[in-house]
């Protein structure tokens, strides 16, 4: 984990961040239990700074608050997110535990044939035009509701947030360079999200491209990974329900229609 990201926990806990920083850090919070615990503790610690000050508001304020309260509907409690799939129709992975740390190889499931298999798929027909991927790359700025001690309803969450918070979120992690890359997929939401602390800078003129492995269609472009060198959060373009895996290849910077190089990472959903 990038220590620089953790360092914002203090500033975040006391609201000493801009809206952009807040959004970005909340994405991190979704993945980092240490920071969640730290934020909670530091918020409580900060509160002691004013524990010696009590100032009763004017009595009229009490009446005003209570009058407003009597006319204000309370939010419904958060219901558990929708079940992964209808009862009885569970796919093989519907009940699967999120896969924890995976081996530090490009082949997630340890099958040495994976690279070859992907290579073989390159030539299959039926690949989705990669055009849509360009759009995905432009949608990096994930909006975010405030990450607060209260929750907002799922409908207010972006697709990325819904995926990250889904009960059936399947989390696959791989080391990459000095950093770690993560793919989170939710069948219930039907989307997947790619996250990296710091993507390695691709060679000049190249970019990392995401792919879904879709049965019967082969490798389908799921968008480009922005090459900022910083922390990245990208929703994968396309339906994550039917895909059995995802991969990353190095492609010309405008992307390719089919993978043209061996995968640098493969995530298996099954």
């Amino acid at each position, binding site marked *: 984990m990038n220590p620089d990201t953790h360092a914002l926990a203090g*500033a975040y806990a006391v609201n000493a961040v801009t809206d952009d920083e807040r959004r970005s850090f909340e994405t991190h919070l979704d993945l980092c239990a240490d920071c969640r615990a730290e934020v909670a503790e530091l918020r409580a610690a900060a509160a002691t700074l004013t524990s010696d000050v009590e100032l009763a508001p004017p009595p009229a304020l009490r009446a005003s*608050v209570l009058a407003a309260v009597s006319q204000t509907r309370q939010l419904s409690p958060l219901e558990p997110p929708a079940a992964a799939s209808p009862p009885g129709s569970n796919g093989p992975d519907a009940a699967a535990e999120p896969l924890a740390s995976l081996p530090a190889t490009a082949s997630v499931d340890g099958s040495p044939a994976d690279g070859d298999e992907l290579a073989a798929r390159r030539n299959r027909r039926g690949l989705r035009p990669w055009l849509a991927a360009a759009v995905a790359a432009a949608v990096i700025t994930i909006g975010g509701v405030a990450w607060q001690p209260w929750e907002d309803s799922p409908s207010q969450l972006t697709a990325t947030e819904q995926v990250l918070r889904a009960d059936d979120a399947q989390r696959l992690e791989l080391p990459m360079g000095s950093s770690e890359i993560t793919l989170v997929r939710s069948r219930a939401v039907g989307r997947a999200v790619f996250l990296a602390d710091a993507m390695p800078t691709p060679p000049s003129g190249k970019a990392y491209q995401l792919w879904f492995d879709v049965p019967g269609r082969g490798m389908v472009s799921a968008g480009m990974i922005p090459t900022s060198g910083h922390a990245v959060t990208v929703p994968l373009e396309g339906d994550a329900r039917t895909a059995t895996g995802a991969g990353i290849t190095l492609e010309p910077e405008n992307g390719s229609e089919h993978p043209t190089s061996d995968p640098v990472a493969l995530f298996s959903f099954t």
Partner: protein
Amino acid sequence: MVIMAAVGSGDESLPTAAVGPDLGSLLTRSARGDEGAFAELYDATAARLHGLVVRVVRDRAQSEEVTQEAFLDIWTHCTRFDPAKGSPLSWMLTIAHRKAVDRVRSAEASKAREVTYEVTTTEREHDSTLEKVEVRLDQQRVRRALATLTDTQRGAVELAYLGGHTHTEVAALLGIPLGTAKTRIRDGLIRLRDTLEVTA
């Protein structure tokens, strides 16, 4: 699903809230629409929340608006309060602080606020400016904890938490590099937490 961890299910998690009614049960009853319970909750916490809001916002009229907004937010959101994510008081103070900070930032945009915040004069400045300041029993304890912070940590934490400034602004105000302000705020809060043995 987000979990705020470091459970502090009761008021013991904030050392200053050890007296008074059980805020957790008041919050639970409020969540079921019990306006009487919410009135009790207000009575038990209004002075604490308003004290915080005034420290940040300064302007009395605006502070009252912010305190009211905060309580309304607490009312609408208490249905979603999760004790696993912090104590009731910490949760309520977080809401009030966020409202206060939002207010001063938007006010700053319209130049409606006195922005100069002298680090050197923050020392108990409120003692002379606020009426009805009640000295809490554990004030000495908090003061002792504050005294364990270095001056630079304390300055950064106070500018951020009480001044409502972003860490970037804190860096500019103190003339220190960006990363340094971020670190000082965090280190200061961590030391405060460790000294006071605050859990969440």
